[in-house]
């Protein structure tokens, strides 16, 4: 029988919600389950209300489900705020010593003296979270040794690890004896090894695999964990991460490093990207390959700092004045985040332009299991290089006008060729010019790069029956939720399929027209208030979608939310 089960851990910032949630996700991933976990947190260091949802399934999952089967409530607010989400046979585990008068109409309450057990069995009442973790696993009679292994990995095999293992066992035993064998049964599935990682970790791994040697950034939620990961690996992988004074410096540093010949990137969120806009144009006119990660959050301005939105699409398509080519991609899944990051570096160098990768808080900080990444599939394309063996370096011109629009690159200091470029309009040799003919030739040369790049942006994802009546159109991180919603609707015999875009610019015009023109109804599903991909489709194809399912409260879509919205549209 297929298993689809949902945990939630709730509590204040600083109570350890994230680590309990992560360990839950990990212990089921180690048991062969597919896992999807997301994080909901406030912009504060202590207090407030945070929660971490962990969905485990015997089938692949890419979104959060509706009902909660087990809630670990580390404070009373977690019960009050989430009891309505409980499944009818759900269980709320809470610390009966601290939380008094708990009540819930849905699911049952399981009061456990977490602190007392932690103190008695592990000698430290701060280990109450681990007791709760053991208790939650016991409620489904999961394999305790799996948890021991995860705890030893996480806390080390020393004193701290051992005490956590003791705390988990005590929580597990307590629930076993209280429930008298009536617990549910979720057993490990297999020894299949999968990776469990976040979208930002996938981007970081992709960048390192692609040979990124330089990153400069300024901390901004939800992008900061990329710079932290890169900094942590900088020694081992011989790369440099500069914590710059501001976003303007960050993008300009990355451009300088890329000009000098290394793969370079920066990462930020919307209002940080606002500061970086001048750098997008600088990379455009100097034809410098850089990768810019925009981990979107709701705007404008500071908006909702810790929440999710897809509100930057129209911004990144247009950010900067003047005409020049760029590429925009938006990973659909955590696995896609790895591969698209590598592709972004290849495109940046093949076409010598800025590539913007749009992720968002939902994808950035959600965990998912994926099959181990096959590094033999990674290709590196550094584009056309100038060869001093074949050509005279004294004749090198950085911006030589070519048929393809791509000029061979040389790197300063590695040969005799002088690499000259300018943010002013320049001639082929790179020196500034105001000559009308040279200006026209350089603009045309740069724009010629769009057409071959456009031929590469064709990896549409389609799901559902061909020629269905209704097509759901999404882009970026909503893939998992829309995909599952299509499944839900098809079970109800609805004629529905989906089209999902992860390579948005240059726009895959023909493929989109082919897909949408067959459907009677077309709905975009977007985490923004105006339907930005609908605007893009209209602008590029002239096609008007028939409806827009939009969500801009900063919270991610769930499959059930989408299915219900589609049903409403159909009525």
């Amino acid at each position, binding site marked *: 029988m297929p298993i689809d089960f949902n945990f939630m851990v709730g509590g204040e910032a600083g109570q350890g919600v994230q680590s309990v949630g992560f360990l839950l996700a990990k212990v089921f991933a180690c048991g062969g389950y597919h896992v999807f976990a997301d994080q909901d947190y406030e912009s504060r260091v202590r207090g407030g209300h945070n929660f971490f949802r962990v969905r485990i399934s015997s089938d692949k999952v890419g979104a959060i489900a509706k009902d909660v089967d087990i809630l670990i409530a580390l404070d009373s607010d977690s019960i009050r705020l989430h009891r309505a989400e409980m499944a009818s046979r759900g269980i709320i585990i809470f610390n009966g010593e601290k939380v008094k008068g708990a009540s819930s109409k849905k699911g049952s309450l399981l009061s456990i003296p977490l602190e007392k057990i932690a103190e008695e069995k592990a000698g430290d009442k701060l280990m109450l979270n681990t007791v709760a973790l053991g208790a939650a696993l016991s409620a489904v009679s999961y394999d305790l040794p799996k948890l021991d292994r995860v705890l030893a990995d996480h806390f080390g095999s020393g004193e701290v690890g051992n005490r956590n293992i003791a705390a988990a066992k005590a929580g597990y035993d307590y629930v076993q004896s209280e429930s008298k064998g009536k617990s549910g049964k979720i057993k490990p599935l297999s020894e299949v090894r999968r990776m469990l990682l976040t979208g930002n970790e996938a981007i970081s791994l992709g960048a390192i*695999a692609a040979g990124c040697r330089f990153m400069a950034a300024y901390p901004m939620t939800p992008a900061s964990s990329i710079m932290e990961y890169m900094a942590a690996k900088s020694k081992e*992988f*011989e790369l440099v991460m500069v914590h710059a004074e501001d976003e303007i410096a960050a993008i300009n*540093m990355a451009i*300088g*490093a890329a000009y000098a010949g290394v*793969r370079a990137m920066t990462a930020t969120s919307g209002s940080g990207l606002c500061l970086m806009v001048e750098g997008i144009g600088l990379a455009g006119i100097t034809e410098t390959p850089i990768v810019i990660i925009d981990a979107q959050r709701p705007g404008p301005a500071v908006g909702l700092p810790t929440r999710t939105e897809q509100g930057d699409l129209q911004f990144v398509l247009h950010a900067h004045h003047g005409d020049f080519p760029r590429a925009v991609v938006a990973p659909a899944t955590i696995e896609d985040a790895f591969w698209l990051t590598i592709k972004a570096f290849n495109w940046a160098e093949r076409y010598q332009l800025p590539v913007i990768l749009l992720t968002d808080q939902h994808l950035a900080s959600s965990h998912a299991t994926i099959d181990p990444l096959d590094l033999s599939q990674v290709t590196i394309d550094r584009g056309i290089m100038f060869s001093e063996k074949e050509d005279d370096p004294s004749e090198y011109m950085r911006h030589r006008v070519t048929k393809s629009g791509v000029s061979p690159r040389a790197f*300063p200091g*590695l040969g005799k060729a002088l690499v000259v470029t300018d943010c002013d309009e320049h001639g082929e040799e790179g020196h500034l010019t105001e000559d009308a003919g040279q200006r026209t030739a350089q603009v045309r040369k740069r724009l010629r790069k769009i057409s071959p790049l456009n031929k590469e942006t064709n990896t549409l994802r389609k799901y559902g029956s061909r020629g269905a009546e209704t097509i759901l159109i999404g882009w970026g991180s909503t893939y998992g939720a829309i995909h599952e919603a299509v499944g839900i609707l098809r079970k109800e015999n609805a004629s529905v399929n989906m089209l999902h875009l992860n390579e948005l610019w240059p726009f895959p015009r023909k493929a989109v027209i082919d897909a949408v023109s067959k459907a009677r109804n077309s709905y975009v599903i977007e985490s923004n208030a105006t339907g930005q991909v609908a605007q893009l489709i209209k602008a590029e194809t002239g096609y008007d979608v028939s409806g827009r399912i939009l969500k801009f409260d900063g919270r991610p879509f769930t499959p059930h939310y989408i299915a219900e919205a589609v049903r409403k549209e159909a009525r």
Partner: protein
Amino acid sequence: MATASDYAGLQPAWCPGCGNFGILKALNTALIELNIEPHQVLLVSGIGQAGKLPHYTRGNVFNSLHGRPVPPAIGAKIANSELVVIAVSGDGDAYGEGGNHFLHAARRNHNITYLVHNNQIYGLTKGQASPTSDVGFVTKTTPYGAANPVNPIALAIVSGASFVARGYAGDMDHLASLVKKGITHRGFALIDILQPCVSFNHKNTYQWYKERVYKLEDKKYNSGDRKAALEKALEWGERIPIGVIYEEDLPVYEDQLPALSNGPLVKKKIDPRRVERLLAEFM
């Protein structure tokens, strides 16, 4: 051997008599005397009349945005630590639009040289006050007089730059010797260069400077004394010191980067298989 013909660039589009000519000549002289060839040099400039300098000599050139020569210079230096990286700005570029980068590049003590053509006026936009215009200086944008000027020398010293000098465009030989010292110094080397603007600054003229500048080398002055240097940085008006104002061996940003200890990043090969061991951390 590097020669003068190696550094013969395009014909400058500066006004006749501009202080920039002296700075250009001093830079070329310094590079030739240090026997650095053009392909070993990267000149990163901003916007303004100073920003055009790299086009009028020879080398690798990244002419960047207004206020931004320093960040790409830092990025390029980290990417290829073997490059001689020289950033070139005017006073508006360095101390106005790029002020934050200037402070932080000094603080982190990056191993680059920064030449700032300081003519106390905006030349390219035709005569507006700059961040270093003398107090009360009347221009089209400051009809009631400019506000207090920034003090780049003092700022650089307190921010942590390890080499701070002031040169004068009217004394090419002296300036060339400062540029040589700046290039060979390990760490962030600021050379603020007093530069008459014959078109728009009719106060701080060649004559004005001639009456005021004096060389620290001619005095008993210890450039290794930070307190004395700060005191010297405040000297402006009747007497204006030029020369090395502060110089010390301080930790250099690039030296603390483990990734740079085995040669330049740009020479390293890309091998995606190296990531295999990271994948295991997520299993």
